């Protein structure tokens, strides 16, 4: 027996564009109707433009937001829809939530579906928290009896019990969001469709919601997930599809999709050349690269291998002791670490010559955690502190773990907490 719970077959959605969206004003329709009266006497009732037979114009103004979408989702999977803005993710979610209907194809779902396309669906500011929980809950498909049963739990999770009988317009936006999410987290559904919920709320709330979502995934519920927060996608989802211009360009494991997405989008950058070099009359930055252990360009670094960050710049003022430096920031915007070439004490005291300098830093294996990183590159001098050349977004790379059994993970495959992931010596005795 197959355990597929969502099956999408040849799904497509066509929109009409531009000047041929005539049916929003009655006057225009009446005009068209008058002109086309002989051809299509009743067409105004159906909102169709009587001139639609002008097929060239029609073809030009048509736009397929989705085309030939086929995939299946198994029970208990947390499935990601990845793609740039306008790739068709939201349209696909709306179709699967039955908010709009497809132009072609069909999809099948097994079990009860709930879709969360916003936090606090249907909240009305004049109503109290209590009234809104019932309103929004019924909109999301809960029975009143279910809501009553879960009410205390919802209010506790949101932490708004004191204010539950005040109108929501007196809530802070954080309180509204928490109440909305608490409600959503208590939905009883086999399939959950979730859009961008993590994009709202403070960091604390995001952590809480990510945790709640992964619990949902572990409890056997199937979750369909769209978010621009790539690290959330990476942590929560096992597999998914990558959409581009309304088509699926890849189906598979989420790591592969993210790699494809980020490198295709020009987001993974292993080499950057500044031509002309950037900087001032002390130093000019000309190139930065990420190299693997074999000195090859590599934006996707194996965690078990050391790698290098190489910085090339022109030294123009021999009296000043320049230093090449970088900052490595992770996806949450946390500065993981920074370094500069004064780590090499000999170089620190060496007088500079006019000309080209290449500084290379080797970062050891088993040091950084898996994920995506941004590199800031700069050339500076100290005493006085001056930045001569800087690029905040010079390079982007990822650390991947392809180990199976060896390495830090051992046999464990789940998410690994921590900003860094060092491999230490453990001595173990069995008594």
């Amino acid at each position: 027996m197959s355990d597929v719970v969502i099956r999408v077959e040849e799904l497509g959605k066509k929109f009409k564009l531009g000047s041929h969206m005539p049916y929003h004003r009655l006057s225009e329709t009446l005009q068209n109707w008058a002109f086309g009266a002989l051809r299509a006497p009743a067409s105004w009732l159906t909102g169709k433009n009587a001139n639609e037979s002008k097929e060239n114009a029609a073809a030009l103004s048509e736009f397929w937001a989705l085309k030939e979408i086929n995939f299946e989702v198994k029970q208990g999977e947390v499935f990601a829809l990845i793609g740039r803005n306008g790739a068709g993710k939201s349209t696909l979610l709306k179709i699967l939530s039955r908010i709009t209907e497809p132009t072609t194809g069909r999809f099948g779902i097994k079990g009860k579906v709930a879709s969360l396309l916003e936090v606090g669906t249907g909240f009305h500011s004049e109503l109290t928290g209590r009234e809104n929980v019932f309103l929004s809950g019924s909109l999301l498909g809960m029975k009143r009896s279910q809501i009553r049963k879960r009410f205390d739990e919802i209010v506790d999770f949101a932490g708004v019990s004191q204010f539950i009988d005040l109108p929501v317009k007196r809530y802070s936006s954080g309180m509204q969001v928490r109440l909305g999410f608490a409600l959503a987290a208590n939905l009883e559904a086999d399939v959950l469709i979730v859009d961008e919920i993590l994009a709202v709320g403070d960091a604390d709330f995001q952590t809480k919601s990510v945790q709640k979502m992964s619990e949902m995934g572990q409890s056997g519920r199937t979750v369909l997930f769209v978010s621009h927060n790539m690290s959330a996608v990476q942590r929560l989802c096992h597999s998914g599809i990558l959409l581009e211009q309304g088509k699926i360009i890849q189906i598979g494991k989420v790591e592969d999709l993210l790699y494809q997405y980020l490198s295709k989008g020009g987001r993974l950058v292993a080499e950057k050349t500044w031509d002309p070099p950037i900087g001032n009359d002390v130093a000019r930055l000309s190139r930065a690269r990420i190299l693997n252990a074999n000195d090859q360009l590599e934006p996707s670094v194996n965690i078990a291998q050391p790698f290098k960050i190489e910085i090339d710049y022109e030294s123009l003022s021999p009296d000043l002791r320049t230093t090449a430096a970088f900052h490595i920031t992770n996806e949450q915007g946390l500065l993981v670490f920074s370094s500069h070439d004064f780590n090499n004490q000999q170089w620190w005291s060496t007088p500079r010559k006019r000309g080209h300098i290449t500084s290379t830093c080797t970062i050891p294996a088993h040091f950084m955690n898996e994920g995506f990183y941004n590199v800031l590159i700069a050339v500076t001098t100290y005493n006085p502190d001056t930045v001569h050349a800087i690029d905040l977004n010079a390079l982007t790379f990822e650390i991947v773990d392809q180990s199976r059994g060896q390495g830090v993970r051992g046999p464990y495959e789940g998410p690994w907490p921590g900003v860094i992931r060092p491999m230490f010596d453990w001595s173990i005795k069995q008594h």
Partner: protein
Amino acid sequence: MSSNTAEDGFRYYGPRPNWQWVDVAELWRFRELIWTFAQRDLKIRYRQTAVGAVWAILQPLLTMAIFAVLFGLLTAKPTSSGIPYAITCLCGLIPWKLFEGTITASTTSLVQNQNILQKVYFPKMILPLASLIPPLVDFAIAFCLLLVLMPFFGVAYSIKMLALPLVLIGLLAVSLAVSLWLSALNAIYRDVQFIVPFMLQIGMFISPVVYEMNAIIPEKWRWLYSLNPMAGVLELFRWSILGLPAPSFSSLAISLSGTLLLLLGGMFYFRRMERFFSDRI
């Protein structure tokens, strides 16, 4: 979206046919939502008003007073039954207010709830259905007022009042029929919401609201007059509450079949347009 529960336990959804009957089973599954929306609108409506639901009584009373004065000044006789004007006028006004309230609320119901329509699925017909309920509550309050006033004006209760629930169903059917058309049209053409107030004003004068049909409309034009479904319904209200003679069978038949056609047409039209609401609103 057509849903064929099928094969292998899946429920499939695809593009659905242009013309489709109302999915009653689905509406039934979502019935709590009708009440939820109605409750929301009821709660919001009288919030921050000084007298609250008393407006349900004041509105028909004030309108009646205006017309009583007007007809008095014109020395016109809008009734032929001999029943005090206050009572026969309220018998028309109270059901008319239900119709008016429903139409006003339902016309904009889809547009006003567009945020929700874009974020969650439910059968859209829930919205015009829910717009029936708050005016129905007002109707109940105002009807109690009428019952209190009748002995005061020396008008006896008629035994035919037992048929009132049926007449009320007729009124709800007319209201729903018009609501379905106007809410669907307004979702596509916003012009409708500007036309509706005028239509309601005209409608009030071409229906026996502030006058009795027999007193004003000449015999030979009554067939045409009866094409207005509200005409039949309002006359039936006077028949049932006041025990006035029932409208003729032919004018009732015209009204009834008109209502049915309007309702069926409205259902099909609404279902047809429903698919586009979230794309076009």
